[in-house]
């Protein structure tokens, strides 16, 4: 019994220390969060991290403690003096804890967080979305190997930067409705030209596969002004292998203030009118 208490005490102390020491790691699991979805995901990840940590400490401590504490001394032979094949208390506790932890994790964060992800009004977005404003629709077309953005609200059909590369600006604080399609306007006659892509912005903490024949939606509210130049996590990246051009299927992304966004829209409109 003293042995069990010693082990239990060690476990509690080490778990406490680990929870304290690794808390910064748990709360920065996403490295950089620039949207409400990333903040939600980060909260879920931190929760899982903090719950899983004592389990990790328990098993690892046991894997180290028991073999060393109960090792056979040099030259010692024969079987162990204690031959206990079952312990109602230990088995019952193990089973109950693993069941409760798993069910609990399913209810929170899984079931509760995922609700918000497919909802047009994401959880926690009240503070950032101005009242009564409709989401800004951004149509995204994925083809091999390019992301094409159009913003129907402002009549923009393909937004590009000064070099003619696809690029996307988003206003901070306004909800964005991404409409995602896998379609190739240059090869519309060839069904083999359409493959699965995945629309991923690392700083938004969310990716959605873009599937030929389906129109899919993703709702995100950017919360931080940033850009690919400032932080590489702020980029659009294809995450599902889509052929040899897959690693280059990325575009720069700029999250800007509403005023800067308006002037960018004007510049784009002027650019499209001139071409």
């Amino acid at each position, binding site marked *: 019994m003293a*042995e069990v208490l010693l082990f239990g005490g060690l476990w509690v102390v080490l778990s406490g220390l680990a929870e304290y020491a690794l808390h910064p790691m748990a709360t920065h699991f*996403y*490295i950089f969060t620039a949207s409400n*979805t*990333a903040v*939600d*995901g980060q909260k879920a*990840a931190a929760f*899982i991290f903090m719950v*899983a940590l004592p*389990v*990790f400490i328990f098993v690892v401590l*046991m*894997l180290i403690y*028991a*073999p060393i504490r*109960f090792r056979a001394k040099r030259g010692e032979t*024969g*079987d*162990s003096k*204690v*031959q206990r*094949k*079952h*312990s109602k208390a230990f*088995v019952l506790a*193990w089973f109950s804890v*693993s069941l409760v932890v798993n069910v609990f*994790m*399913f209810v929170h*964060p*899984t*079931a509760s*967080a*995922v609700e918000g*992800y*497919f909802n047009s009004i994401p959880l926690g977005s009240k503070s950032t979305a101005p009242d009564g404003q409709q989401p800004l629709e951004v149509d995204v077309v994925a083809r091999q190997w390019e992301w094409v953005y159009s913003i129907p609200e402002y009549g923009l059909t393909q937004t590009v930067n000064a070099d003619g590369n696809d690029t996307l600006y988003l206003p901070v604080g306004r909800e964005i409705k991404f409409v995602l399609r896998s379609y190739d306007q240059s090869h519309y006659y060839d*069904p*083999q030209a*359409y*493959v*699965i892509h*995945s629309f*991923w912005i690392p700083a938004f*903490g*969310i*990716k*959605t596969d873009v*599937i*030929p024949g389906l129109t899919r939606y993703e709702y995100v509210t950017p919360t931080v002004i940033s850009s690919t130049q400032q932080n590489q996590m702020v*980029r659009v990246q294809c*995450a*599902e*292998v889509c*052929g*040899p*051009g*897959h*690693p*280059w299927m990325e575009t720069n992304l700029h999250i800007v203030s509403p005023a800067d966004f308006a002037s960018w829209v004007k510049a784009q409109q002027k650019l499209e009118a001139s071409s």
Partner: protein
Amino acid sequence: MSTVPAFETPTGTNTGLSKGILAPMLRGVLWAAVGFLALNTLVTLVHPNVVHSFVTQVSATFGWIGALVGWMFAMGAWDAVIRPSFGFAANWTERATGWRKYFEYSTDHKVIGIQYLIFSLGGFLLAGLAAMFMRLQLMVDHMWFYQFPNAYLTTVGIHGTVMMFSFGTVIMVGGLGNYFIPMMIGSNKSAFPRLSGLSVWFLPFGYMTVIMSPLLGAWTTGWRGYQPLASQDGNGIIFYYLGVFAMLLSSLIVALNLTSTIIFNRAPGLRWSRLPMFAWGMLTVSILNIIWVPEILMTFILGLLAHIVPLPFFTAVGSPLTYLELFWLFGHPEVYIVVVPAFAMWQEIIPVMSRKSLFARQWGIMGLIFVMLLSGMVWAHHMFPTMQNKEILPFSFFTEMISIPTGFSYLAILGTLWNSKMRLNTPSILVLMSMFNFLIGGLTGLFLADPAVNFQIHDTFFVVGHFHYTIIGGMLFTFMAAMYYWLPKLSGRMYNDKWGMIGAVWVFLAFNATFIQFFIVGLRGMNRWVPVYPQYLQTMNFEISIFAFLLGAGFLYNVIYVIWVWNRGSVVNAENPWNGKTLEWYTASPTIGDNFKETPRVVGGFYDYGDDVPKHVVLEG
């Protein structure tokens, strides 16, 4: 029982194919070439061939079938199966000794087991080399080792495919299972020795097909061979479908044979309640194979037809997600096919090394069975970013629940360790290391099971880290433990524990240093399937590669050391150096010919320790 011989007595005269001038495998390669040329030429002649090339996707498919028939006939099918089917005498001889018996047809389960070990190890080394090439490319953020991304992606595909289907799925089941299961249940032979003797030859044929696939053209899909992307791939994808088909056919036959052996060939007194844990592992994994392998074989046929006919099953005019659904329906049970033998092996080695009765044995068995059952209900978590909320939640639920039966293996081991008399040596340390690694693999799975977090880390190096922790960390470390545990049994020779321990610590440190960084680099934004990546990730990738090379060298060290001990190590003093209780320790080390001269009668449990435990096996004349 003791009257059943270990292998069939040779019959007929030695004039058949098996007594030709060439060594059997060389002859097999020759007949494979003849078969390929014959059918390829025939199809090229009759096929309305618009490109006027000698090898087309259709002719290569038929040529491959010709090659398979030629190879299998030369490797024993002709002498042992076809001739007797038509009433002629079977016509082959089996050597009892010498290394040549491992490279020709045999019906002895021990020879077949070692054949599987040899060819599976060959697959491991080739696929490991592919991994080293990948890490070379990833040391720098732009193309340098490879000139074209296609070549890199083909290497990724070959690495994953050959590792999973010729090593992960095979070495503990086809290799250790074939060798030890008949011994552990007190039999001299397996249920279907002739079929089993053939099955092993599908394996090298299958992975050589995959490795030669670049000859027909690059393929970019990774180990999934997935449509609709595969519809654009070069003809190399045909050799992916066909090669994996052959490798899985081999595993399917092993599963049928082991299941029948465990059901029908048990020694007297070896009741289900006394079945060894490793046999439970082999039984559950074989049932998984029997359920899911036919499903993926069918899918590969659809994928093949979609490519060569072509039938638009999976393109935009078909159903683009269906192939992925079908693949992962098999793909998730597949990873448990890889790792369930490891759970069973922990429970085999730890009681022996800790001199203590296996704790909560019935929970350990239930763990294996419920993992087997639940593994077919979680596949869609591989596809969360393609799904809707209402579809995700049930799969997320089962994914989290499967950790409960998985935990029972930990429950049994940790309970056994407590108050034991632990012998810390290479096999037991490797089991503990494996449990540590698999724990990280399992706990990182909690993040992946949560949809919100999954949307961030899906398709990043976080996932790559997660499954390498479960498969290398869980299965490969346990396989190494099993090899060091059974080496005196397999070879009759004992290794030096110091040199074994160096090998164990080396791979443990290099493995963790490599793959723990996969999680971090994934969280920092490193996506999968890329030969080039943003510059800010280069420093970390560079050092990951350095540790990966150290890991590769560590595996090589262990392979070389085990082979050296097998041939040159010091002969064992005791037949049963660990004082193991399962029946394989009641045979000679190494066993040649019959396992048991006298029939063992089991009268007690294999996992009951203690000074007052009565003898559990009686040998009867």
